[in-house]
């Protein structure tokens, strides 16, 4: 069982709620995935529409935990104020902290991220930082009060999968006992299985499901891949070898001349 800030979570697949073809497909995909954590955001509400309320009703019907994000924030001040507004709105002190450094790469501003993480942790937030695979930044985030780390495996929405698997393996090895969630860049279920085999504790994804031809079926596919990858990690996979090793015993072979 995965434990995050003292809460036990069964499903190791966290799902985003954006970009689905319809609210119904979002709801169906979330149910089919078996996820217990959905990420949500907050944006300007137009007067008299009640749009945010309708979305929130849909999410609450799914009866899962929500993880609000600070997506789109480019400064510490923006991220901290957005987190405080999210805490009031969603009634949770969990926050997926994003401080974006570049408009094009959506790479985290890790300096602002650490500063914001410290401010929010001291204010009682339970921070889930969207970060890079840089181990030193991970250390700083832990020092700032984070008890979970969420490194990317590729740029947000890129669907490229683990572009630097060695870095992710090193990251896992360097932070034993810390819940690690691969957040961003996954494109296919095999990518999710791969990082779970590395020993990551969970994956967080959105676009790979929402923009698939059939998001509901893809949600199930990712769910199975995450389960398979975790089981493989726990079963201790064989390490690659440089040379061939026969799998069929050679002792007792007949000799024909």
């Amino acid at each position, binding site marked *: 069982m995965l434990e995050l800030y003292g809460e036990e979570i069964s499903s190791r697949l966290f799902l985003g709620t954006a970009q689905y073809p319809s609210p119904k497909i979002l709801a169906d995909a979330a149910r089919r995935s078996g996820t217990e954590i959905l*990420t949500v955001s907050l944006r300007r*509400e137009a007067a*008299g529409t009640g749009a945010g309320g309708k*979305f929130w009703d849909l999410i609450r019907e799914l009866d899962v935990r929500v993880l609000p994000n600070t997506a789109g924030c480019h400064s510490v001040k923006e991220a901290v104020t957005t987190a405080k*507004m999210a805490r009031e*709105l*969603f009634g949770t002190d969990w926050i997926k902290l994003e401080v974006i450094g570049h408009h094009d790469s959506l790479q985290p501003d890790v300096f602002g991220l650490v500063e914001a993480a410290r401010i929010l942790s001291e204010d009682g937030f339970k921070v889930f930082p969207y970060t890079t695979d840089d181990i030193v930044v991970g250390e700083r985030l832990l020092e700032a009060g984070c008890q979970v780390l969420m490194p990317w495996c590729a740029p*947000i929405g890129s669907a490229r999968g683990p572009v630097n698997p060695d870095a992710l393996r090193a990251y896992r090895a360097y932070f034993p006992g810390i819940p690690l969630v691969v957040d961003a860049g996954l494109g296919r279920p095999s990518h999710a299985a791969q990082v779970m085999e590395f020993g990551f504790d969970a994956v967080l994804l959105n676009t790979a499901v929402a923009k698939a031809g059939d998001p509901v079926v893809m949600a199930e596919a990712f769910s199975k891949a995450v389960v398979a990858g975790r089981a493989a990690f726990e079963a201790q996979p064989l390490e690659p070898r440089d040379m061939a090793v026969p799998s069929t015993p050679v002792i007792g072979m007949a000799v024909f001349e």
Partner: protein
Amino acid sequence: MKLIINGEEQEVTSSTLLGLLDELAYEHDFLATARNSELVAAEERARCLLIEGDRIEILSPMQGG
């Protein structure tokens, strides 16, 4: 007085944030508000006095990744 509400300048008459939400016909549920980049909690809106040029943000839940 003129305020910047969700990034757009608007002429309003309300003197408090709570009054402003009513004046603009916002439903009070599912909203989070900020004045000049600082959170104004729901229970503080009635006491939050507005002055010319304040920047008001009115946010609600939305899809996110």
